[in-house]
């Protein structure tokens, strides 16, 4: 074991390996910053370049860039309200309001440290879980996944603001959008109007851009002013970033909880980062001392999703390495890369290639550290964007959102869908409907239906009677009722 660790991690310090990691981390960050280009795209584009390379170097290049993609995605989410990756959509809810208040540096500092440390801690958990992962992964069948999704949906109540009716409508509209396309159980095309383009459903990046980025851009076009209003006092970005970094340590317990949540959701194949970030955000809001400030620039709303999203990456590696089951599209591509290199992931992987497993663990840790350092020196320059006049910035955002929607799967249809949905997003914004709730409904709706269908087919209508399902149901009930109960007892005490 010790020999494997020394051999696996020692490889990272060879000059060629270090150069490879540096270049892949820079590329990963650039991919994360550009909307529409996900970690899966990063891997798909890089695989041809890794042919013929040493297996250790090839995996380091792929894993290193993958580890920091989500970190890069948070930068544009905070600065211009354009989520670089799907999971970054939760970060912008509080990150962008902080930017508007002239605290972009603070939000970015918190995001970088929460995300980077989340990635490192998630990897450490991965290292400890390697010997016991198989029973954990095998314990999660479709009923347990369904109830995990239901748990995520229960946070809709926490995310909603203002009118309960509008909150409910927002969530249900999101669910309806998720139903567009093939029904997973029957392969029946729904709400496609006979158009082949819709058979594959409405994809997450066009939807996220439509709900959050385009409405903000329309408002920039109308007002013509910069993101940070003139006269807003703000500190130097670097000083502000240190403040943000300290915020993560001030809220260390929230950070740890969200990393654990992320790792746990990462281990469960098919749940993924899009769920982890929203569950973490909902959890942060329900447990915060100031839930009323969420959505208006609460730093906890930045720390929670970023911790969970990057913490998840370590967990997501586990089923891929130990069982050969990819938990996400990026992991499926990594699995392909393993096979190209000539390595067969699965239960025997950890026996035959333990040194390689430790190289992956080491790469995840060092790539995250390197990502923080690179961003720390480059991000302060980007903060200046927030002072650029709306008339100059708005057409830029318009073009970048179009490019982002298109490059997700090279389809012009996604650009049209984005602008059509943006009309709904802008109307919802103006009339006080909750867009985060809509998006949560959209992200979880399709998954809920899919796992429900499989559960009923496999276990009948009593599918909820498995022990782990009952535990998740109990946890969901506790998480829903804890805040109203605490408020009730507080009121009782004060009266």
């Amino acid at each position, binding site marked *: 074991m010790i020999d494997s660790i020394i051999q696996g991690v020692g490889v990272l310090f060879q000059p060629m390996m270090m150069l490879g990691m540096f270049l892949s981390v820079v590329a990963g960050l650039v991919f994360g910053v*550009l909307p529409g*280009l996900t970690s899966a795209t990063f891997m798909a*584009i890089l695989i041809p370049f890794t042919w013929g390379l040493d297996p250790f170097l090839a995996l380091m290049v792929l894993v290193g860039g993958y580890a920091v993609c989500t970190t890069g995605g948070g930068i544009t989410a905070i600065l211009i309200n354009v989520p670089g990756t799907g999971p970054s959509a939760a970060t912008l809810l509080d990150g962008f309001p902080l930017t508007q208040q002239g605290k972009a540096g603070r939000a970015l500092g918190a995001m970088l440290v929460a995300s980077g440390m989340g990635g490192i801690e998630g990897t450490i958990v991965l290292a400890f879980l390697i010997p016991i992962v198989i029973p954990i992964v095998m314990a999660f069948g479709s009923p347990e996944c369904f109830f995990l999704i239901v748990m995520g949906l229960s946070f809709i109540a926490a995310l909603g603001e203002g009118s309960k*009716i*509008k909150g*409910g*409508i927002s969530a*249900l*509209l999101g*669910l*309806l959008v998720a*139903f567009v396309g093939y*029904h997973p*159980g*029957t392969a*029946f095309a*729904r*709400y496609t109007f006979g158009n082949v383009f819709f058979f594959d459903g409405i994809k997450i990046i066009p939807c996220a851009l439509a709900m959050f980025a385009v409405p903000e851009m*329309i408002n920039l*076009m*109308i*007002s*013509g002013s910069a993101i940070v209003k003139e006269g807003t006092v703000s500190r130097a970005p670097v000083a502000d970033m240190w403040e943000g970094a300290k915020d993560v340590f001030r809220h260390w317990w929230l950070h740890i909880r969200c990393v654990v949540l992320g790792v746990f959701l990462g281990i469960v194949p098919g749940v993924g980062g899009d769920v982890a970030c929203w569950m973490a955000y909902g959890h942060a809001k329900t447990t915060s001392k100031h839930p009323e400030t969420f959505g208006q620039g609460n730093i906890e709303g930045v720390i929670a999703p970023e911790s969970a999203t990057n913490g998840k990456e370590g967990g997501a590696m586990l089923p891929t390495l130990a069982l050969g089951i990819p938990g996400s599209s990026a992991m499926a591509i990594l699995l392909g890369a393993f096979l190209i290199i000539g390595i067969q992931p699965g239960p025997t992987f950890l026996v035959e290639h333990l040194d390689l497993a430790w190289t992956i663990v080491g790469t995840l840790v060092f790539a995250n550290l390197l990502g923080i350092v690179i961003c720390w020196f480059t991000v302060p320059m980007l903060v200046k964007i927030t002072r650029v*006049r709306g*008339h*100059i910035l*708005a*057409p*830029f955002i*318009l*073009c*970048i959102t*179009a*490019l982002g929607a*298109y*490059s997700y799967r*090279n389809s*012009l249809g996604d*650009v*049209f869908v984005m*602008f059509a949905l943006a009309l709904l997003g802008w*109307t919802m914004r*103006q*009339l006080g409907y909750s867009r985060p709730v809509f998006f949560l409904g959209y992200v979880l*709706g399709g998954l*809920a*239906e899919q796992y*429900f*269908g499989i559960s009923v087919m496999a276990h009948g209508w009593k599918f909820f009677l498995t022990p782990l399902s009952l535990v998740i149901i109990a946890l969901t009930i506790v998480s829903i009722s804890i805040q109203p109960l605490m408020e009730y007892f507080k009121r009782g005490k004060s009266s």
Partner: protein
Amino acid sequence: MKKKDFLFYIILFIGLAVAFITTLGYPPRARLFPIIVISLCGIFVLWGLVKMLIARNKASSLKENRQKDEKAPKPGEGHQRQFFFAFAWIGAFVLLLWLVGFVISLPLVVFAYIKTHEEGWRWAIISTTIMFLLVYVVFAMLLKIPLYEGLLFQ
């Protein structure tokens, strides 16, 4: 705002009714979840409409609303014009994109938008160049993303 809310509820209700009728034609397993969601959403919309109508019928609330309306700053003509301009720009952008593709339309829109909003030549040229480099060099050449070339050039 009340008028707009009312209009949105009506549009939603019509949309949901159409979706409900469409969904009834699907196989039982494929329609189970959508029917539940549409029905619940319909109930919420009706609830919202009824609440709004009850509030309107209450004389006192009407008075309050009137007072509120009088106090609330109404969006000026300039603001409304900006709003229509923004949507016109987006419409023109989508049309241009469809006709001439990414490499031409994106830098062109950035340049045209900045110039029509009375910004200087310096900003217009810098922004257009950056956009061209981003689209052509980064996306098309480095990342080898097959960018849409436009209806006129295909």
